[in-house]
């Protein structure tokens, strides 16, 4: 019995850690939805694209090499360099800013004042475009992502908990890093939005587009800014998830893990994305532990969405979302 208790505790802790990983993806959705009312279907693909770019730059891969070789009959593959992780991350962040500028200039600018469903569909198109672009630029093979993050069991935690409880807890060091990074990210985003000129402008746009425009805030600039930040958050999510599985095209599916988090935490709340992630992560792991064996297992995806559905029924705006009441 004590072992079962400690195991349940271990499952809960690991669920919380997994939840942080889901939150990292959900954060990107929240940022864009909050600032522009767009549900960005492409957020998962942004994470994939960022991770592909990071690995490509780090390993000195020539973008579009296959296409160039096919057209010009050349045989180029790499620049021959290996960049330090931090340099590659900074360069990738710049690429994501460039991508945000292009998205604003060639997609969003033309869709100002369109219905949210039109903008949503535009992001579906963007997702497929970016997935194809990533494939042509960097290739579809699986790439190992190594920016120096630790991975594997934390021996210190295992031995300490064993001494205390007679049960050594498993905590993945990568998950611990992800938790710290998520905390830093939320703190930075909060400070940015509360205490900087651009952060205040971003909040003004989020509150009322028309009012923000009337006081001289550039909607186009704000969109570039928020898509850049979302691109950076996608890069962070891509690094964390890519470190677990390698960088491969299934990374875009991590968005599926973020949806119940958003439904639960609310689409407009940064703390909601974190708390939602923690609840979903811990809830699905505990459900799998207690109920999974009775129903054949593999319940996590199912449970996450059912839990989110329950929240929707009783609190449609999510835990921390803004309640929207439209009166006729």
């Amino acid at each position, binding site marked *: 019995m004590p072992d079962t208790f400690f195991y349940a505790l271990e499952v809960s802790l690991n*669920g919380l850690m997994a939840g942080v990983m889901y939150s990292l993806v959900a954060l990107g959705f929240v940022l864009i939805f909050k600032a522009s009312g767009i549900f960005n279907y492409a957020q998962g693909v942004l994470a994939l694209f960022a991770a592909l770019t990071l690995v490509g730059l780090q390993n000195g891969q020539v973008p579009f090499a296959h296409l160039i*070789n096919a057209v010009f009959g050349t045989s180029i593959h790499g620049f021959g360099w290996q960049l330090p992780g931090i340099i590659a991350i900074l360069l990738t962040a710049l690429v994501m800013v460039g991508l945000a500028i292009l998205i604003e200039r060639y997609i969003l600018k033309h869709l100002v004042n369109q219905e949210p469903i039109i903008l949503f569909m535009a992001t579906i198109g963007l997702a497929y475009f970016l*997935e194809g672009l990533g*494939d042509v630029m960097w290739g579809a093979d*699986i790439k*190992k992502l190594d920016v120096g993050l630790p991975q594997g069991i934390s021996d210190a935690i295992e031995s300490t908990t064993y001494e205390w409880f007679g049960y050594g807890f498993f905590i993945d060091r990568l998950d611990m890093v992800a938790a710290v990074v998520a905390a830093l990210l939320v703190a930075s985003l909060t400070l940015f939005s509360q205490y900087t000129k651009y952060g205040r402008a971003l909040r003004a746009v989020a509150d009322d587009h028309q009012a923000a425009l009337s006081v001289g805030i550039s909607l186009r600039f704000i969109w570039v800014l928020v898509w850049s930040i979302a691109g950076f958050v996608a890069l962070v999510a891509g690094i964390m998830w890519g470190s677990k*599985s390698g960088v*491969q*095209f*299934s990374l875009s599916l991590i968005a599926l893990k973020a949806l119940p988090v958003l439904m639960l935490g609310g689409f407009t709340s940064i703390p909601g994305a974190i708390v939602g992630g923690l609840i979903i992560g811990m809830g699905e792991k505990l459900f799998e532990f207690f109920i999974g064996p009775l129903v054949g297992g593999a319940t996590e995806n199912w449970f996450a969405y059912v839990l989110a559905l329950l929240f929707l029924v009783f609190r449609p705006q999510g835990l921390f979302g803004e309640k929207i009441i439209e009166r006729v």
Partner: protein
Amino acid sequence: MKKTFAALAAAALAASVAAPAMADLVVPNLSYRTGPYAPGGIPYADGFNDYFTLLNERDGGIGGEKVQVPECETAYNTEKGVECYEATKGSGALVYNPLSTGITYQLIPKVAADGIPLYTPGYGRTSAANGKVFEWVFNYPANYWDAASVAVKYLLDENGGDLSGKKIALVYHNSAYGKEPIRTLTELSKKHGFTLVEVPVDHPGQEQKSQWLQIRRDKPDYVLMWGWGVMNAVAIQEAANINFPMENFIGVWWSGSENDVTPAGDGANGYKSLAMHGTGSDYPVYADLKKYVHDAGKASGAGDQVGSVLYSRGMYAAMVISEAIRKAQEIHGTAAVNAAQVRDGFEALEITEARMVELGLPNFGQPFAASCTDHGGPGAALIQQWDASAKKWNLLTGFIAPDDEVLTPLVMEDSAAFAAENNIAERCN
């Protein structure tokens, strides 16, 4: 404007499934180069295409007939796979190899109705090995139940012939494919006295913390894996994370490619998998592939997958198909064979080691001889182990035969149930 759009749409549709010349032999390639399973689909499709390109460029095709391989993208999606089948079957398709168990299950009744053979080496419906019931389906040289049996036989060898009291966990993709070995392993657990623990993983398998915490707690002696795509890489990484001994972790052949072990780096060292053919590029056929396909600029895809496990498997599938076509030409005395004649070729196919040597693939695959009743082949498999520092698979064993004493009744039972459900009269009597 509307006319331009309509013309563009028509051109796009026509281009998506290129129509072959009517006199050519048509072998559609239902591939997946996009989506989450693309890293597995691309090398397989490249190996498949390259082998037929080699035959066309070096030999002028098969029996003097060029082979056309129109490619259709399924994205490993069952509905799209069926659409591809419907879109290509009218072009004179001789055989289908959809590289998906889900698509295979959907196509089994269709190919029987349309009279086109379905070749599913190492995947698909296991009981299709019974040719008495499945006239149009062939899955030699080995199937999932063979794989499960070979894995257990290998573990028996490792344990002095006794697995009683041992605990074996099966980590599997929670799909028709992943569930295939459960029945066999359950029977084998009864026979050999080991405990089987089932650990399902939902598609796509990007998050497996619960499963590996369970394995850490249950402490199985061995873990078997039936995974595909990202599930394999994450499982191997998670196994390394909990310090599970890699030499006790064995994947099926769909969990044994470079894609699966590369992301975990050194952590994957010692991981084992089944293999139904050799791998690497140390076979004479590769010299011809280099000369006639790659150096000639006719390689499929980026041309960077040569010698990988899945490239080898795609090439192997193409080789067997081409041999079946050759056999059909021999039986019917015509080079321009049709699908029904190719089925006869599959059923009469015999691949000997001498023939493999002629094809430039010595010791690459197991010899087999199909028959009216046997569409499944001998079912033997190798065990290979990943060397992370050398970044290569090393073969640990020769071909290990499965336990037919357990498998044959299971195949008969399952195929009989299928025959009863579908009012199929047994043949070959």
